């Protein structure tokens, strides 16, 4: 039982990380109609900036603002130099231009930091584990990630449902042309949304540092999973992104944890492990296929 709860928490932790990325991606698409493959690169840049500053200063908590600033700056530069020209283009051009950005970012990061992955030491304040229930101890750092993720979700909810900017965001995702026709400064709105998305991606990146290896290619790996989240949740819906992130995080973690041992009942150990790992990697995509069969536009599609 305690193992199950632990895996559930692991799933939640993975889920909130996915949410931090998916929220930005789905907002950027919902408001501006841009599919941004380089969103994963901003996550990577956040992770590298955080890891570098943490290693130089010895303090993880100085790395966090550095990562946020780096992610926001790169995001703003990206919007200003490239993405701005893509708003009126078709999806193909957007995919290719942002694919080119991935190639560029990956090579620049390789040039700056080399091919060896960086490791970030756990901040001593959050090191160690707490006993949540009798028999269930859990690392504080992972709990902190879950907490931050949930706070961000709450903050986004308030921002979108209670503020004027949020009102424009909601209006923009429903009918972009109408918002523009009503005289709203759309360019400003776009920059704010893109910056916000970049900020969240950077936050996810820096938080991933102490639990994952910081390396080139980490962005694409999580980006594709994030796409699955966005598709299942419904493109443009923050609520959908939240539900789908947690769902996917838990499903993925559970499959990885339990499938190999279940398969071991019917086949030899090493084969069961390999096949189990394979099927659990495929699990979220199968889930997506099922959701699409039932609701082609995703669970919480805004325009349905």
């Amino acid at each position, binding site marked *: 039982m305690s193992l199950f709860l632990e895996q559930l928490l692991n799933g939640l932790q993975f889920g909130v990380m996915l949410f931090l990325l998916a929220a930005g991606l789905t907002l950027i698409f919902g408001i501006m109609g841009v599919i941004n493959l380089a969103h994963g690169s901003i996550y990577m840049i956040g992770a590298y900036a955080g890891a570098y500053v943490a290693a130089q200063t010895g303090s993880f908590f100085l790395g966090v603002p550095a990562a946020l600033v780096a992610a926001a700056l790169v995001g703003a530069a990206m919007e200003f130099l490239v993405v701005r020209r893509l708003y009126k283009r078709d999806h*193909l051009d957007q995919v290719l*231009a942002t694919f080119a950005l991935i190639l560029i970012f990956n090579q*620049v990061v390789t040039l700056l930091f080399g091919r060896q992955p960086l490791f970030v030491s756990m901040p001593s304040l959050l090191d160690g584990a707490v006993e949540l229930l009798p028999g269930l101890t859990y690392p504080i750092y992972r709990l902190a990630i879950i907490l931050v993720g949930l706070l961000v979700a709450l903050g986004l909810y308030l921002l979108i449902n209670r503020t004027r900017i949020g009102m424009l965001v909601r209006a923009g995702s429903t009918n972009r042309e109408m918002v523009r026709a009503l005289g709203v400064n759309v360019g400003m709105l776009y920059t704010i949304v893109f910056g916000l998305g970049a900020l969240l991606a950077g936050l996810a990146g820096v938080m991933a540092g102490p639990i994952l290896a910081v390396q080139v290619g980490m962005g694409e790996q999580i980006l594709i999973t994030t796409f*699955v989240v966005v598709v299942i949740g419904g493109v443009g819906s923050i609520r959908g992104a939240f539900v789908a992130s947690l769902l996917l995080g838990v499903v993925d973690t559970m499959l990885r944890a339990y499938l190999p041992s279940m398969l071991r009942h019917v086949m030899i150990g090493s084969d069961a492990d390999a096949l189990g790992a394979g099927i659990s990697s*495929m699990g979220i995509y199968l889930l997506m296929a099922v959701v699409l*069969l039932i609701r082609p536009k995703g669970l919480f599609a805004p325009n349905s």
Partner: protein
Amino acid sequence: MDKSINKPFLLAGVLIVLVALPFLANAAGYPALTSLATRALIYGIAAASLNLVLGYGGMVSFGHAAFFGLGGYVVGILYQHYTQDDMLLGLIPGTNQLLVTLPATLLVSGLAAALIGALSLRTGGVQFIMITLAFAQMLFFLFVSLKTYGGDDGLIIRRANELPGLNMRDKQTIYYVYLAIAAIFFFLLWRIVNSRFGNVLVGLRQNERRMAALGLPAYRYKLAAFVISGMGAGLAGCLMANFLRFASPDMVHWTKSGELMVMVVLGGVGTLFGPLIGAAAYTILEAVLASWTEYWQLGLGFILLFVVLYTHGGIQALFARIGGRRP
């Protein structure tokens, strides 16, 4: 529909150059050029297949590496069972004959495309991009986990598939066989694109609602195009595995889908021979940049960004514009 077809002389000229290429390469002291041209031909087939859905049909598939990789794995898996002299799933004997593996590839990649297409085409636009990408990635993880077939490392095919009466170990023979296959492929593609089916496809891209109002079942036409396109990509994968004598999860990796799209866009979206030009340009670019620096992808990224942002219609359009004509 396509201007270059109206220029039979140009086409014949290009064909003559392609036929003479191995001799020219040897004479010029660059025998490696033949290998480069073979790769360009293979990628040309794959990119042109992608272009059928992407350029003509307006369906932006970001997962064509799935079919490319499947083609490669059909060759690899059948070859492994041939050398081990056992049955695939206890039913299907292995083989090393190209005349068997090629139809098998078309069948497998066609079936996969029907399945993936049937699901993905329920949506459109940006979801379609993400879903095709996700399905390809799913296949990638499947092949990585298949330890029997090499897992991460892929499958080595010790000898290329045989064709009766030909020595397929000779690079020059392979080049000519592939050139013949490519010629047949592009002839068929030309027929498809200029048929009623091709026109419906273009119509669907321009205005799906209007085509539906004319009473055309849009979904079925799109699915048919997707299946044909997947089979083409599978064919290319089969040829590539035979050429490299290697099939690995890299063939299914999402960057391969991206590369195929880059080739289409480099050459010119929605043109018959654009993707072939794009594939050649990409292969040459890769070879040249990689010989300069190991960070060649940086250069590729900037070139791609430039092409997407500033040239409207790729290399073909660029040439047309330099020549003073509208693309």
